[in-house]
């Protein structure tokens, strides 16, 4: 009799120890003026290969200057970037500093009260040097810091152009007719005009941000459709999918676009599998290495639409870095973000990644290659809007990404796609009336 009770007691204690182990294994929080431990959930490597190495260097440098600060970098995955941080927000615990894609995603978390404004911890004299801060402004405060700027332009293979008798645009930008004529010539010469990967959906999203944007007059224009004041089925918003569909039907895209991820598509361009593709600075840099510096050129997206945004640039900081509400050391966290922007760190960033830093103090002379220089000029001149940032995450995922996939896999017509956009938006509106309120009140 006693033996059974003993066994049961042991088991109960065992399970309780398991639970206790779990709770005590969480990182120790700081004691006063002793060690400061910061956890930084970091994402940038996918956008800018070399970023992880730069960050390791930066942390080492910072810890040398501030021996009482210890920074733990936790790289995030693209697939779970949002959901992982959402878990932290639900738990009200997690990293001190985190990364999220700018504007839509960041503000989504601002509205959940998960961030402290970076402008509360960094003086305006410093933030004035940061570029593209408009992407994370809300209620007069700046909520997150940029690190780099990515623009996306059309990279083209000069040799293939020459073979097909295509002349690149003189002013940096084709009209749409010129672009279509070029595609036809390339195809006639047996060259695949455009190579791209859309298996993960981002390829289609890039077309939205580069082509779809051209019919709009402002980001607020888009917001009207998101909040339901206008409909996405209006050709103003989705008419351009017809043009994309035509291109697919004419065979201007590679056949295996649905078998390749975005990065694999860019790689395919660098391997000479197509005459043109969209490319970030990093992808263009890779192509220059693989195909030869004399062989690659860049041009801006051909002009189709006539909205006010048709001439806007598309550079974005892509990822924004912010301090969390529950951090026990917000000032220390903000200080590290400021350290990332010191001139030595900015130069090192460019050396590691080839992506320009989002700071006025970044030494532009470091960019030597004329092609990359050209991209940089486009990315830092005039208004810059990456339209995908101005969608709620659910609409981006359920409409933007899937729309491209439907067109590329030819499993839906442009009108199917337009209807899907509207359905995704109205589903989001119905399922998240509280988020809708925030979007309605957001003055852009």
């Amino acid at each position, binding site marked *: 009799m006693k033996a059974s009770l003993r066994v049961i007691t042991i088991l109960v204690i*065992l399970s309780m120890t398991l639970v206790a182990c779990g709770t005590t294994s969480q990182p120790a929080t700081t004691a006063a003026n002793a060690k400061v431990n910061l956890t930084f959930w970091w994402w940038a490597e996918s956008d800018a290969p070399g970023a992880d190495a730069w960050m390791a260097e930066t942390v080492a440098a910072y810890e040398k200057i501030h021996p009482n600060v210890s920074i733990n970098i936790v790289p995030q995955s693209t697939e779970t970037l949002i959901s992982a941080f959402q*878990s932290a927000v639900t738990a009200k615990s997690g990293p001190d500093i985190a990364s999220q894609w700018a504007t839509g995603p960041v503000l989504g978390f601002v509205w959940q009260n998960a961030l402290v404004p970076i402008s509360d911890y960094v003086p305006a004299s410093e933030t004035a040097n940061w570029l593209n801060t408009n992407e994370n402004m809300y209620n007069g405060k700046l909520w997150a810091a940029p690190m780099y700027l990515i623009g996306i332009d059309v990279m083209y293979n000069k040799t293939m152009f020459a073979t097909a008798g295509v002349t690149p645009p003189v002013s940096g930008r084709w009209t749409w007719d010129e672009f279509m004529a070029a595609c036809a010539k390339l195809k006639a010469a047996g060259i695949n005009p455009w190579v791209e990967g859309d298996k993960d959906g981002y390829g289609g999203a890039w077309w939205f941000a580069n082509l779809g944007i051209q019919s709009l007059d402002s980001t607020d224009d888009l917001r009207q459709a998101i909040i339901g004041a206008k409909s996405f089925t209006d050709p103003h918003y989705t008419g351009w999918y017809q043009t994309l569909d035509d291109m697919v039907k004419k065979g201007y895209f590679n056949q295996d676009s649905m078998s390749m991820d975005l*990065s694999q598509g860019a790689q395919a361009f660098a391997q000479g599998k197509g005459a043109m593709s969209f490319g970030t600075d990093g992808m263009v840099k890779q192509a220059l290495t693989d195909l030869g510096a004399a062989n690659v050129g860049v041009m801006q997206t051909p002009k189709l639409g006539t909205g006010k945004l048709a001439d806007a640039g598309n550079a974005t900081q892509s990822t924004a870095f912010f301090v969390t509400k529950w951090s026990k050391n917000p000032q220390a966290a903000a200080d590290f973000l400021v350290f990332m922007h010191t001139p030595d760190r900015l130069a090192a960033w460019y050396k590691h990644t080839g992506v320009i830093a989002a700071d006025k103090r970044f030494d532009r002379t470091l960019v030597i290659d004329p092609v990359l220089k050209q991209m940089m000029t486009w990315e830092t001149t005039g208004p810059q809007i990456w339209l995908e940032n101005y969608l709620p995450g659910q609409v981006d995922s359920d409409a933007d990404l899937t729309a491209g996939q439907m067109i590329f896999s030819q499993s839906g017509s442009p009108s199917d796609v337009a209807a899907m956009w509207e359905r995704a938006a109205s589903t989001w509106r119905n399922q998240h009336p509280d988020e809708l309120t925030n979007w309605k009140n957001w003055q852009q």
Partner: protein
Amino acid sequence: MKTNPSRSRLWSLLAAIPKQVILLFFSLVAIYPIYYMIVTAFKTRPDWLHDQFGLPNPFTFQNITDALNKGNIPLWFGNSLIVTIASLIVSTIVSSLAAYALARFHFAGRAFYFNSMIALMVIPPAVLILPLFVLMVNIGLVNTLPSVIIIYSGLLIPFSVYLLVSFFRSLPPELFDAAAIDGCSNLDTFWRITLPLSTPAMVTLIVVNALFVWNELFIALVFLQGETVMTLMPGLTLFKGHFTINEPLIMAGTLIATMPMILLYLFGQRLFVEGLVAGAVK
């Protein structure tokens, strides 16, 4: 009635040929993807691009080395090991006690309990994850190994109990009667008679359960989101994301991830087979 012996011999030999062909066909189909994975893991990328079919030329260990050095595969391997062993210990102890009660006692609710076990065996994990996630967040265990250990232990109980009850009931009642006459308490009987006799069933159960935990993706993905606490299967997704364009490297990673189970299978195939069959309808 008796046919000519040599004719029937010839006939059965001839009849055997199409059978061998059929089985060979299915075996090739079954083994081909495994062959592909192994072979790709040892190729250089240019070689793979050039020839996806054939054997590696040149044969290279670089991918395996890279897979072990870049990314966090060894760390994830360790986590998987910890989670698997811990879940197995907890679930086996807990299930054998419960199964003993169900098999050897008569009490109210016995049939209901046993039937519940059978029903719970196939509950969709998707139904459990969100509330469990919120619970883990509330007790502070989210993103820690104990969270998945607790969950896996729970998930393994229905099948383990079911299997062990069937086995315990197959033990000769005379043994227990004899023990009772000798004055053994129930717990003594459990420790000294039932458990030792059940070693084959336990081993089988442990092997089948280990397979489930090691290979599991969904729950690990949800509860272990920090890169340092991940187990192998969600880790592979991260690994794939980092090295998308290096297919042989990814195959090397998957090969390493699945090696323990393949080795276990090579040496203990019988256990897997018996375990899965024992859990099924006779």
